[in-house]
């Protein structure tokens, strides 16, 4: 029972953390509409994952498991793109609005961004949701006796525990002042995106499409194991692996300066707009 709970905790943690960081950010910036979209994306993904998990359990799965894995890799890379775009927008947002909370709440988010938020939440939850459903279904199949409901409850409790973990984690962010908060969540989101990118690359390597170049660049298992609490947390949040391949490390490292450049450009654009604004009001 404890094992079922722990497995579900681990399977749900990444989704809970990603949805958690989005909700925390939006709550703090007063973007209520955005929060609704994130919830809609997450809840929609739960429903879709249950449907998909049950469907792929039967032999009736349309796509073979390897095709599904390839699709997952593609969706992950797409999610990295959407998330990167959101981070640039959030960065500009935080910069332009200063501390004026009321104006922030009044301003509606563009539909495209709302859909982007919903999409990220959907991908994060769906990805893990399908695996969680497959696992729980297996638990039920294996124990066709009275213990099945108990184990099922333990599994659901594990998912709840993951949500609680994410909630506790982001509770800590409430103590940061607004400026630090935006900076910290921005950096965290970038690391999350880099982690998703390496996860996508890892899938493509496992499927034989990419070469790892060198399978094990280093081994930090002596320092932090994936199955420890902190290792699981970092694995879920930023894609920590104790023995990454060279290609994964390169993908992670290449992503950050690329985004740094994109954010710098956003800064320049924002400064340009700020210089034009007084000129306009003077005219």
């Amino acid at each position, binding site marked *: 029972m404890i094992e079922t709970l722990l497995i579900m905790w681990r399977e749900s943690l990444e989704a809970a953390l990603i949805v958690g960081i989005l909700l925390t950010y939006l709550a703090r910036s007063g973007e209520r509409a955005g929060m609704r979209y994130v919830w809609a994306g997450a809840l929609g993904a739960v429903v879709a994952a249950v449907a998909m998990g049950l469907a792929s359990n039967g032999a009736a799965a349309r796509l073979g498991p*390897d095709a599904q894995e390839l699709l997952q890799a593609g969706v992950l890379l797409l999610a990295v793109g959407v998330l990167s775009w959101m981070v640039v927008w959030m960065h500009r947002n935080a910069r332009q609005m200063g501390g004026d909370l009321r104006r922030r709440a009044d301003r509606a988010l563009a539909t495209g961004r709302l859909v982007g938020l919903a999409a990220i939440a959907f991908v994060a939850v769906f990805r893990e949701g399908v695996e969680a459903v497959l696992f729980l279904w297996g638990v039920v199949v294996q124990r066709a006796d009275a213990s099945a409901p108990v184990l099922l409850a333990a599994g659901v409790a594990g998912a709840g525990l993951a949500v609680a973990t994410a909630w506790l984690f982001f509770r800590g962010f409430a103590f940061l002042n607004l400026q630090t908060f935006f900076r910290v969540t921005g950096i965290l989101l970038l690391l999350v995106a880099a982690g998703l990118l390496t996860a996508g690359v890892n899938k493509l390597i*496992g499927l034989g499409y990419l*070469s790892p170049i060198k399978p094990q660049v280093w081994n930090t298992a002596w320092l932090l194991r994936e*199955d420890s609490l902190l290792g699981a947390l970092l694995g879920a949040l930023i894609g920590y*692996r104790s023995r990454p391949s060279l290609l994964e490390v390169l993908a992670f490292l290449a992503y950050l300066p690329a985004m740094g450049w*994109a954010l710098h450009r956003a800064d320049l654009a924002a400064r340009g707009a700020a210089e034009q604004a007084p000129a306009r009001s003077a005219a």
Partner: protein
Amino acid sequence: MRPPRLLLAALLFALAATVRAEERSVALAVAEHGFAPPEIEAAAGERLRLEVTNQTAAAIEFESFELNRERVVPPGQTVAVYVSGLSPGRYEFFDDFHQERRGALVVK
């Protein structure tokens, strides 16, 4: 937004340019009692295609920290897991959903 796109393009290029080295397929079944065979041998640097078949009635997750691989396998299905370029050593794997099932890839 250009750099991520550039990165994506570079990745796709790497994908297309990946040299398909000689590979050897190895069947790895997961039964109720565990992996069959429980141990696989391979030569250093060899490119292996592990064909992991789940013969049980419940989903399994083929996982290995040493190999940096993780795949859920629905009941009755087979997935391909590639590993390549490994140095000599013992690489353990397990079923994350039933952790008493364990096996290892021994590279010589």
